[in-house]
Each structure stands twice: as C-alpha cells, then as structure tokens.
C-alpha cells in the first residue's frame, strides 16, 4: 500500500515537474523601486519603496534627485540601505518643497565588482520615460515562395545614397 502511494506520488511529481518545466523564464532583476506622492500646497510627501528580490552582494544605495529649486525638508537624500541585501522591502519617506509639478526621482542602485543592478522611479510619472516605438510598415508584394513560405508583404527598404 505504501509503495502504491509512493508510486502515485512520484508520478504526480513527475507530471507536475513536466508541466512546470514547460516554460522557462529569465532571471528576475533584483532591485525594484517605486515612488508615490501626495501634495499639500507647496509641500509633497514622497514614499519610496525598495523591493529586494534576490540576495545582493552589496548594499543598495537609495538616492533622491530633485529638480532645480526644489528642497528636501525631511529625509536623507542619499542613503546606503545597509540591511537590504536579502529579499524584502524598505520604505523611506521624503518631504519636499518647491516641486511645482515637476518630477522627483529616486534611484536604487547596487554595484559590486561582479554584478550591478539599478532601478529608478519618478513622481509624478515622467512622460518622457515612456519611449514610443515606431511600428514597421509593411506593403504588399507579388506573392513569392521562399523556403516553402508564401510571403505576401514586406517592409520596404531603400538604397542609401552613395
């Protein structure tokens, strides 16, 4: 009976491993920072959350970058997060004056001789940060069979002037 259960368990484990092993993903980046904020008059309270997703070889550094004229009232502009080398989350609060709708940015960065990681977040979210990619435009061509594949459209390219 025990052997029967063991057999079933092994079979189920094998099926599970096969199903789980069907898709492989890339290694996760080990640092991620987010920045949220609230404004009250000329004063903004910013909350930076640093997520450590792996085991870091060196402590990450958290830096706040402000636009010209803005002033940090509370908080540390640059801090080595000494204990943040294991998976977990660290939160820091900044109080800033004079943002005037402009963007504050936090950067979390880890650098060691053999590895590096960096994450950056802005508040309000920077529009320039989102780069729109142009979409290639294909045009119809006379249907042609290349290596057994019928191709009916292609992206036009032109010779560059000599």
């Amino acid at each position, binding site marked *: 009976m025990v052997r029967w259960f063991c057999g079933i368990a092994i079979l189920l484990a094998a099926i599970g491993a096969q199903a789980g092993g069907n898709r492989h993903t890339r290694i996760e980046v080990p640092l991620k920072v987010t920045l949220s904020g609230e404004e009250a008059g000329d004063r903004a309270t910013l909350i930076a959350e640093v997520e450590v997703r792996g085991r870091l070889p060196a402590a990450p550094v958290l830096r706040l970058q402000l636009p010209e004229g803005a002033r940090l009232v509370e908080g540390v502009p640059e801090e080595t997060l000494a204990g943040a080398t294991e998976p977990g989350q660290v939160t820091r609060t900044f109080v800033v004056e004079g943002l005037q709708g402009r963007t504050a940015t936090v950067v979390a960065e880890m650098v060691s001789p053999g*590895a590096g990681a960096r994450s950056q977040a802005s508040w309000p979210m920077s529009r320039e940060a989102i780069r729109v990619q142009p979409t290639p435009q294909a045009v119809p061509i006379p249907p042609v069979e290349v290596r057994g594949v019928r191709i009916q459209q292609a992206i036009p390219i032109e010779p560059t002037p000599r």
Partner: protein
Amino acid sequence: MNASPCRSACLGLLLAFLGCPSPSDSPGGGGGGGGGGGTPSGDRVRGSLFYQARFPSVAGGAITLDTLETLPAVGAAAVVIDAGGEVIGMAQVDGDGNFDVPLQRDLAGGELLIFTTLWAPTLQSSGIFLAVLQPPVDGPGTYEPGSATSAPWAWVAQVPDGGDVGRVEIREEQGSGALYVFLFMIAAQATILEDLCNGNEDCLVSVGILWYPGVNWTCGACYSRETPQQIQNGPEMRQSIFLAGGAQESSAWGFTVTLHEFGHSVAANYSRDDSPGGPHGFGQTIAPAFAWSEGWASFFAVSTFSRWIGEPFPMYWDIQEGNSLWIDYDAMTYFGGDLVRPDPGAGMAQNLDESYVVSMLWHLWDGADVAEGNAWNDGIAIGTDRVLRAFGSERMTRWDRGGEGADFVDFLDALLCAEGGQTGSVTRMVTEGLGFPYDGQPGCP
C-alpha cells in the same frame, strides 16, 4: 566548432564587447552561394546590406541602450524575385555585408530583392529550423504567450536596371531588431547542428521566436517547449521563444536573454532538463536540477556569444521594465566573492546559486574557443565541443547522481566519462578551485 573572428565592424563598448557577425562558415540565411538551382544567366544583383542594432553600456548598476550602431548583415540571405514573384536567385551576405546574386535569367524589369528571417542550413534543406516571427496581436501591449499563426519578418528593395542595388540599410524603425535576433540565432542553431546533431538536419528542432516592437508577454521573456508556432503560409515551428519588445525592456538587443532561453531549448531537446521551472532570482540558492537548468542556459548564452564575437564575454545583462541587471561570471567567483558559494561540507546534492553554476561552467570552458577570461588563468579549457559532447551523452541523459534530476554533478560525471584522462585535473579544479564538493567518482555507461 569554428568561432567567427570579430570583424572591424565590432566596436569596443561594454568591456570591449559589441555585436558581431555570425560565423562565416554558417550557411546563414540558407542562401548558400547558388543562384536558386538553375543555370546562371550572366546577370547578377549586387549590393550590400546593413542593419541598425543597439548595444548595452554599463554605468554603475545601470545598463543603457543609447548606442545605435550600423553593422553588416553577415549571414542573411538575399533573394531575388522576378515581377511574377518567382525566385530567380539567392545568395548569402558576406562578412563585409556584400551580396552578389547570380540569376537564373536576365533582368527584365520589376525584380525585387527580399530578405527574410527564415533559416535552413542549406538550399537543399528539408525545412525551416529557425524563424523570427511577427506575433499577430492588436498593437502594443502585454499578451499571454501561446501558439499562433504568424508572418515572418521580410524586407524588400527594388532592383534597378543593371542590378546594382547599392547599399541598403534596415533601420531600427523598420524592425532591424528582428534581423539582429535572427543573425545571432543562426550561429546558435548552426552550433547545435554541428556539435549535437553531427550535421544531421533531422535531429534539429525548429524554433519560432516571436518579437515585435512594443509587444510584451506576461512571462517577460520565455521559452516554451510545448508551444508550436505556425508560420503563415508555411510550416510549423515546433517550439517557441517569446521576447519582450517594449521600450523599457532589453528587447531584441538582449542577446543574453534570447540565448539563455534558447539554452533551455538545447537542454530540453538534446540533453535533459528536469527543472521544475518558475521564478528565480539573483543570489538565491535553488534545487540542483533548477540551478543546473538555469545555470546551463546562461552559460550557453555567454559562451555562444563569446564564440560569435571571438573573445571572452562572460557578461549576462538584462533590462526589465526599465530596471537593469548585469552579472560578470568571470569576475564573480574570485574577485569580491559575490556569488553564493557552495558549502564544502554540504555534499553534492545541496542547493546552488544558478549564477555560481554558470561561473563554474565558464571557468571549466574558457580558454579553448576563446581566450581565458581576465579573472583567473585556471589551466582548464574544456571548450565547446567537449562540453556539448558530455552534455548530450548517455551518462548525462540517462543516469542520475547528486541531486534529483539532471544537475551539475551529472554534467561533471559525463565530462569525466568522456574525458577519462582529465579526471584528476577537472576534479581538482572543481573541488579546490571552485569549492564544489564533487567526489570525482562517476559511474560511466
């Protein structure tokens, strides 16, 4: 195993690294040198093909892709069709980016020159073994990976009177990323054909790579062994690699990510992969079979790219949602001790950091196909041929020692079984140099 020498088109950017042409011995886009099988007419179509590619730069912990370079499209196939859509010539782009296509009949006007992302080893090949495809999605966004019917990437230029096309360039906004992926993946597939399939095409497993600017996947970037892709108006690719194409991703330029995913395909198809899969992070120790699977895939990526550029490049890098990571597998083991080292007293079945597995493989491998890395001249240079021979051997694929499932111990056993004369030096290197408690006593078939 022939490495392609790094040509002058390669630039020193990231630790003297940059993109480079695919191996000159590869039949490339499958053009071969022929004119499509018929009798040459005397007319030819000549020109050169270049493409834009982005390369990474390191600044502290950041990776940026601000550098846009133009490279010769070495290995691509130039196909000439007549006004009726019939192929009248085909040839491969050479190491300088030039093509010279002999034609089966004289130019009559209306001919077109076509480049695609469909690869077969030779003109006589029975099928397509690599395709970079445009996923059929409704514009930019994040999608669930799955099977689909997709068109290959294709570019077209008009052939002028006389057949001299001149210099054509595929720019980034014209999808040059697809060509970049295609060209370095040709090198990877050609390696598998040569070293694991002994030149037998029937053993090659076809792969469809889905990439399009602005299109991301819920898995980020992933390989799926049981997800076929149907080429529109063409054959089916048996397996899939999904690459994120968003502007905040490494996208097509992330060659280490693409080759890592292909490394999983190589393990699954030509060796053995018992990994449970799932999320995995930097510096985490994971089960031996999981660490082996991920470590092998990253090792395959850096060793393949190193051979492509002809010099050691032990760097893994990636950008995910604007967040970046880089790892130097050559430096990490010895300088700074950044990796989670094995516990010498914990036995051969202990959990391992996947990056440490990569680093061990790197130090066993480097020094043969490319020079030793900078960190440590360890005196061991196994090289790609021997690594792959062990990787695909009966000992690796059918036996099990160490942790449950295929792992680093099984690979070492397979290496020693194939390389009896090096038993002592490899075991010493692994135990004393790399700190892994391997017993050096493989059972061999």
